[in-house]
């Protein structure tokens, strides 16, 4: 309970009775729980589909690349493992961004009539998607290992922090897109094709070494490409040494997050009118 004896001046959209981190934590937990249950566990096929979708894609890519294109070496690794390690984080990022971008609209009734920080909705959406997808990632690695693929599980020591960095960066982007989506409804529609194009421009389905020298710096400059390389180094080759690049990545992710939050906070006082 707030201190009732004091006449507190309520500054912004977060006015209204009890505020503060304790309430926000309870609220975030509530949103997160609902997000998981209504989006994924609520519908009987939801959870299955969330895990089946990447598996099916993996199977199709495997078929297309190894059977039709007869693609050769993937750094001496099997195509399945090579792609799975990178494809899963990408699909997780894609789904997280798409869901989070429209998440505010799902809570429009609440945001328009109750005082709470609307960024909690975006956080809950991102968290629900990524938690589920990370669980799927671990499951797939375990299955591949069970089928004899040489998964280096000690690489998770690097992979888990990398996922956390990814989460921070995605949250920043999601805050940006979600806030813009409230005012400009095209964001959602532009996002899908852009993500599709980016996927093929990122060395997910192919190693960076196959990219012609002339354009390789451009492809290598893709931060997600860097993430993918790091994940492969860790989980396929067991390279565990931290790099300076990790610190840079963390810095970039934090900058994205703070930038996204800044935009979100600038625009959120006007959500009520445009949702």
């Amino acid at each position: 309970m707030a201190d009732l004896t004091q006449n507190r001046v309520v500054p912004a959209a977060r006015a209204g009775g009890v505020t503060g981190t304790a309430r926000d934590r309870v609220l975030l937990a509530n949103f997160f729980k609902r997000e998981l249950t209504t989006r994924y566990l609520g519908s009987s096929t939801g959870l299955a589909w969330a895990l089946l979708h990447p598996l099916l894609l993996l199977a199709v890519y495997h078929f297309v690349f190894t059977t039709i294109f007869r693609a050769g070496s993937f750094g001496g690794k099997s195509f399945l493992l090579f792609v799975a390690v990178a494809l899963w984080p990408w699909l997780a990022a894609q789904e997280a961004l798409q869901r989070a971008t429209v998440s505010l609209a799902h809570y429009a009734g609440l945001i328009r009539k109750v005082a709470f920080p609307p960024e909690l909705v975006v956080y809950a959406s991102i968290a629900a998607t990524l938690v589920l997808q990370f669980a799927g990632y671990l499951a797939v690695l375990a299955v591949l290992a069970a089928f004899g693929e040489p998964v280096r599980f000690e690489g998770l020591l690097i992979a888990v922090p990398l996922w956390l960095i990814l989460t921070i960066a995605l949250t920043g982007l999601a805050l940006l897109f979600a806030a813009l989506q409230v005012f400009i409804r095209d964001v959602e529609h532009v996002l899908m094709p852009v993500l599709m194009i980016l996927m093929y421009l990122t060395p997910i389905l192919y190693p960076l070494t196959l990219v012609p020298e002339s354009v390789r710096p451009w492809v290598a400059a893709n931060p997600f490409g860097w993430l993918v390389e790091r994940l492969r180094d860790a989980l396929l080759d067991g390279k565990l040494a931290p790099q300076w690049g990790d610190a840079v990545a963390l810095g970039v992710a934090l900058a994205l997050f703070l930038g996204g939050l800044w935009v979100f906070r600038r625009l959120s006082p006007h959500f009520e009118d445009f949702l």
Partner: protein
Amino acid sequence: MPDATPPLLRLDAVGKDYAKVDARGGRVRLVWDLLRGRAAARVFRALDGVSFDLRRGESLGIIGENGAGKSTLLKVIAGVIEPTRGRVAVGGRVGALLELGSGFHPDYTGLANIELAAALLGLAPAEIAAKRDAIIAFADIGDHINDPIKHYSSGMIVRLGFAVATTLTPDVLITDEVLAVGDESFQKKCVAWMEGYLASGGTLLLCSHSMYHVQKLCRSALWLKDGRVERYGAAADVTQAYLAFHEEKSAGAKQPMPAASAAAAGVYAIQQLDLSPGDTIAQGDEFRVAGDVYSPDGRAPVVLVGIVRADGTPVYGVATDMDGVAPQRIADDRYVFALTLPRLELLPGKYFVRVHALDPEGVRLFDHVERPLVVTGETREMGLVRLAHRWNDGAPTPCGDGDPR
């Protein structure tokens, strides 16, 4: 005025502007402006200069027409929106019931929404669990508590909403037109609860179109008009002023027009209207309608006198030209008329006398003045007028309620 206790709620010259955008490009422009920290280029002023204090245990009714800014004001107080100007200071837990089903997520079940609402109010999970049963009992919607809110009727939503808002005992309770939705028995339950809440020191902000509820529950009232405070004071005074304003407004152009403005407009206008014996008459008495009419061109206007029931149902109307008479000329531009109804056999009730001024051809209607008329008497007859009648072909009837004389 200095007071020992600080107000629970203080609004200081609060104003709220809404950005106005029409085209799609306007939205991009708006986002750009907002990001640069500028105000929107074109705004609609929803609230302006609203100030008041609310102390613990007080109750304030907020009244005003649709679009006057009531909901915006409540949202500012509840903290949903940030005021563009001025300051809002809140010293306690605000429980807001803004419109139907506010604070509820349509996809969640009633039970899940109780948890959500409690979390929004800042209750810990343990506290929520402790209050859940009380809320379910108050809402009294049976097994529907396990259905998603979107399948609820409006009555069920308001029940649940009221149950949540009240059981969580906020320091200030804000309600927006919730009483208008529930059925009679639930309304009574709500009013009873609010009275108890006020008696035990609760603070209430009630937004309602029902002056009855405002007068019954609120000590003071605030009348919002076009986003500004039109009047703020004791509930009885403010609600009466508000009702008077509405009567005047609906009467509108029905008051006699001053000669100057009629002359300026060049229209036939009723300048004076007298009812005799007055605006109250006993059933069956002689009734007289007389008045002056202004004529812009000196020709004799046609005057039409009509009587309608309070709900607008026409009872009888007659014009001078129908009977082949004309108003009498008393000056170059003035005519007088007088219509006598020797026995006004209207049944007791509220009526309006309407007098219209038409052009000499009786075609174009220029002016329209209306006066209320109350017919008194006691009778069990039904309808609008007493028609001349006879039972059993003139056999004497025993004196009954039917004939007050």
